[in-house]
């Protein structure tokens, strides 16, 4: 395929992405330099870098950054460990039973995140099933407070993202070399040895892949926090995205919200750029 045919085929997609991704991103930088609310959206007032400085000096922004980091540190490793364990166990059952388990495990992944979280929350309402069990077993009342809401967000996060790791690891384990496993059995390797020295190295590239995707997803976590904390500041459970949303919708400072979005983009670039350079090299080699 020559260059001009390539551009003719790819044109609709490239134009779409330029108009609605590249240009908006540049616009966000410029909109971040305006003092802008919903009332003066058509004649914003230029304030330079003031909004960016405001964001960096905003203690609630750093607080939400802290909770996002906590979410990442808890949910991402939990997802990897539980996902790998369940995939290994799933490999042990076969046929119809395996299909049933897989279908059940996939459910949280398929469902609308808002709806899934809402269903999850129903268990913890005053009339909920878990609330009742919690009260009967621990003999104390279950309440929504700063700690419990944060814990719920973490458990719900694991509930929602683990299926992805299970399916990816499971597909990886299916492509293991049987010869290698048999040879190691003959050499007297036990199960733990095989998992450590054959299975784990085999799925290493998948681990990195899941790691990257889930770090980026954790960074922009929004839907489940929105439902579980109801954006109530007393729970101090804001993430970067929910605080950014509140700045735009509740506080109505559109300029500052744009500035915050730009700063979060710069933040994720630290993880993203080395990875992009790596993929660029791979793609050029593959060519």
């Amino acid at each position, binding site marked *: 395929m020559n260059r001009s045919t390539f551009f003719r085929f790819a044109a609709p997609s490239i134009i*779409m992405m330029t108009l609605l991704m590249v240009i908006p991103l540049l616009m966000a930088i410029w909109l971040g330099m305006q003092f802008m609310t919903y009332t003066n959206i058509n004649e914003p007032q230029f304030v330079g870098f003031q909004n960016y400085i405001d964001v960096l000096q905003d203690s609630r922004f750093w607080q939400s950054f802290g909770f996002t980091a906590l979410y990442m540190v808890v949910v991402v490793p939990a997802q990897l460990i539980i996902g790998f364990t369940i995939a290994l166990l799933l490999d042990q059952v076969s046929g119809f039973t395996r299909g049933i388990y897989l279908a059940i495990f996939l459910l949280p992944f398929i469902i609308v995140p808002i709806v899934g979280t809402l269903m999850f929350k*129903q268990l913890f309402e005053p009339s909920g099933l878990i609330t009742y069990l919690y009260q009967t077993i621990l003999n104390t009342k279950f309440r929504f407070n700063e700690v419990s809401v944060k814990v719920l967000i973490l458990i719900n996060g694991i509930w929602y993202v683990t299926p992805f790791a299970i399916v990816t690891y499971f597909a990886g384990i299916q492509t293991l070399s049987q010869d290698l496993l048999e040879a190691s059995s003959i050499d007297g390797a036990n199960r733990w040895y095989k998992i450590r020295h054959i299975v784990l190295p085999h799925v290493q590239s998948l681990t990195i892949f899941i790691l990257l995707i889930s770090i980026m997803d954790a960074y922009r976590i929004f839907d489940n926090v929105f439902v579980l904390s109801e954006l109530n500041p007393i729970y101090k459970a804001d993430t970067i995205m929910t605080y950014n949303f509140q700045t735009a919708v509740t506080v109505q400072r559109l300029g500052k919200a744009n500035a915050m979005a730009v700063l979060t983009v710069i933040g994720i670039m630290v993880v993203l750029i080395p990875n992009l350079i790596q993929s660029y090299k791979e793609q050029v080699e593959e060519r």
Partner: protein
Amino acid sequence: MEKIKSPVGRVFIHVVLISFAIYSLMPFFWTTLQSFKNLKDANSRTPKIFFTPTWENYQELWLRSMPENGAAIAYFLLLAVVILICLLLFAEYIPIRNGVVYAVVAVAFVVLLWGIPRLVDTSKFYDYFINTIIVTVGTVVVSISIGCLAGYSLARYAGLAAVFILIAALGFRALPRLAFILPYYWIGSATNLLDTHLLVILTLVAVNQPFTIWMLRSFFMEIPKELEQAAMVDGCNRLTAFTRVIMPIMWPGIISTALFTLLLAYNEFLLVRLLAQTNWTLPVAISRFTGGEDPRHLTLAAASAVSATIPIIVVILFFQKNLVKGLAAGAVKG
């Protein structure tokens, strides 16, 4: 890996898997129960597993007033839906071309959706449901059409420009959504397009385009180049070779990608919440049921959650193989 044979080991495996299955299913189980309870049962402090089920929550959610011959209409609609789904399932065995059957079923569904508000007095929730269908179908159609062209050319062109576009797309996919959505709001208010389906569809297409072209490209890569080269020797040009030779064998890959695009569009909350003030889709409508002091919120939230989940489960049941294939092969996720 070889299977564990000891009975203790087998029991242990199933105990862990069943515990995880309970963790996965518990919210669905409980919410479905709640949605069929009356207000008193749903708010009972000791959870009721056994109770007299009632449809009243679903009625209140979907209907503004109960028609006199409600039961008859409900049975008629149920029958119509079952017939249409059977037609879809058994299309292969009907001695008419599959495409014709699918087209007839699609038209019948549209007529049905159009007819329901004229038969019964539906509530706002039905309008949100229709909005969701329009936005989802619109996004899938536009996204897949332009994505196929781009995915195909990216799979076939070896120049550096293709690599550059792919990597740029990968980068854009990873960025937080708000960095795009806030400028979309500004664009929308400048062009008076806020609250229209057009703006929501176009922006959803753009936001999902990087994912779509990567996934479609990986499916196009699996198709050997020789195929279209042979067609071009036989007198096709690039475009006719693409439409007549490549597209017909691409259907499984297209369905997989379309399924993921469908899920992304159906699930989108943040974008619709900011760009549409009244023309909500289901996730935004349902989010209104969280919180608040009104005790009815509990059962209505449960009924709305179940209502929004059923269409997705039906779609997934139809295309289960494509979903797992896409997850395993594409190694990409929204």
